[in-house]
């Protein structure tokens, strides 16, 4: 049962990502991206990272997608023009190099993953033997909070300052200019 749900979620992730790549309509691709993000959150739950899954839903679906919809609506006219003159076929000649790069890179990655045999890596075997594996009954949220405030305090502060800089920069870039200089 678990396996079935897992593979269904994986299939939904890949299929909706492919639909994002294939669709000409920008709104449709944004909403298929929404489906991809939700299915990815499901996969995070299967990897026993429930807090990351919730964060994914809150930040991506609540923040990034709304931003994308805003940007889409503010730049609407050009998109409509693009829609009318776009070619009908999925694989046109100008997309061939991109397709080639993506497929060859996928072959390399799959080959590397299968050759590496991640389940038999030394450190994973060691942590499995010493009981350092998260089990489904563990509650990891307190652990994440404690390690954020102790072990990973420096990256946490760095990331928060970076986020503040990025948001101030974005607000500065997006404001209306009164006079050109």
């Amino acid at each position, binding site marked *: 049962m678990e396996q079935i749900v897992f593979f269904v979620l*994986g299939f939904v*992730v*890949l299929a909706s*990502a492919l639909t*994002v*790549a294939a669709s000409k309509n*920008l709104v449709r691709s944004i909403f298929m991206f929404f489906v*991809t993000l939700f299915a990815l959150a499901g*996969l*995070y739950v*299967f*990897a*026993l*990272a429930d*807090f*990351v899954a919730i*964060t994914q839903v809150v*930040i*991506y679906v609540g*923040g990034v997608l709304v*931003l*994308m919809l805003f*940007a*889409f609506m*503010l*730049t609407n006219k*050009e*998109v409509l023009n*693009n829609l009318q003159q776009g070619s009908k076929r999925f694989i046109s000649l*100008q*997309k061939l190099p*991109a397709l080639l790069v*993506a497929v060859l*890179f*996928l072959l390399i*990655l799959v080959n590397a*993953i*299968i050759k590496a*045999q991640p*389940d038999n890596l030394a*450190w*994973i075997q060691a942590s499995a033997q010493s*009981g*350092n594996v*998260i089990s489904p009954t*563990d509650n*990891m949220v307190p652990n*994440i909070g404690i390690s*954020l405030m102790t072990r*990973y305090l420096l*990256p*946490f502060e760095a990331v928060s300052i*970076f*986020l503040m800089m*990025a*948001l101030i920069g*974005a*607000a500065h*870039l*997006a404001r209306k200019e009164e006079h050109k200089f």
Partner: protein
Amino acid sequence: MLTYLLLIGAGLFCIGIFIVLSKRNAIQVLIGIELILNAAILNLVAFGKYDKLNNGGQTFALFAIVLAGAAAAVALAIILNVYKQYKTIDPNAVDKLKD
């Protein structure tokens, strides 16, 4: 389970590369970049299962999600500015650094 998660991540990464390289709309290119970031986060989370004590994978997955949000905000502000300047968001049409 770990191998399948890594394979799904690899597929997502390559779909993201294809979108970034082939789309002629800056917002769709941004979606491709977000797909690539999500593939990386999926790998972090998948390996993070085997690090219960330090919990490095999940913590850095959270950091990566925050960085992706910041990147999206800045990129969309830049897209709006480019639209004001050029009246288009086709990355091929943007070819000047100053007015």
